[in-house]
């Protein structure tokens, strides 16, 4: 069955520290991969996506994610986090022949000053 696993439900980090939020998906020949972010009391917003081509994709606020086909992973990273990055992050996958996106259970990122 198609699925997405986010291994950490919560990740606490100190401000300006690096962070990695892990995501694995069930294997398939062709996938689209997404990270969505939900800031407190706001709706979900698309952070970045991988469709094809370069395996490293970046967002405008310093996050990046790398598509690793052999490990079926799409981990999200940021070298130095800010208080404003406090949010819940959802990894998602679409099997490109499919009509819907499947979401992981989310990782709550909390930043300590």
């Amino acid at each position, binding site marked *: 069955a198609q699925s997405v696993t*986010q291994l950490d*439900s919560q990740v606490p980090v100190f401000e300006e520290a690096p962070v990695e939020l892990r995501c694995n998906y069930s294997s398939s020949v062709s996938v*689209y991969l*997404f990270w*969505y972010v939900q800031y407190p009391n*706001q*709706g*979900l*917003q*698309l952070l970045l*996506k991988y*469709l094809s081509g370069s395996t490293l994709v970046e967002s405008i606020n310093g996050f990046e994610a790398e598509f690793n086909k052999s490990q079926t992973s799409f981990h999200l990273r940021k070298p130095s986090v800010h208080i404003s990055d406090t949010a819940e992050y*959802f990894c*998602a996958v*679409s099997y*490109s022949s*499919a*009509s*819907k*996106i*499947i*979401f*992981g*259970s*989310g990782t709550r990122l909390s930043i300590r000053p």
Partner: protein
Amino acid sequence: GAGVSQSPSNKVTEKGKDVELRCDPISGHTALYWYRQSLGQGLEFLIYFQGNSAPDKSGLPSDRFSAERTGGSVSTLTIQRTQQEDSAVYLCASSPDTGNTLYGYTFGSGTRLTVV
């Protein structure tokens, strides 16, 4: 419209009552999706519309749940005889896709449903 609009933003209802949740997608978006977000859970897919038809309604949890879309635009999710386990945030999203998720989704702010 400029974004995906959902109404009401909050709904408190008594167990056993019926509720209707409305979604107004971005103008021109042909694909519309309903998801449910429960406390501590991820997003659970409910149903997908392409135009006015629903090729995939596999996520509807029971026959108490139904949805329709008219004019290729507004969609209504109806929950009959609500139960406490129906309490969740119901999210609507739309996409310009014609059966492909290439663009990702634009989400509305959701309707928080509380069944008491």
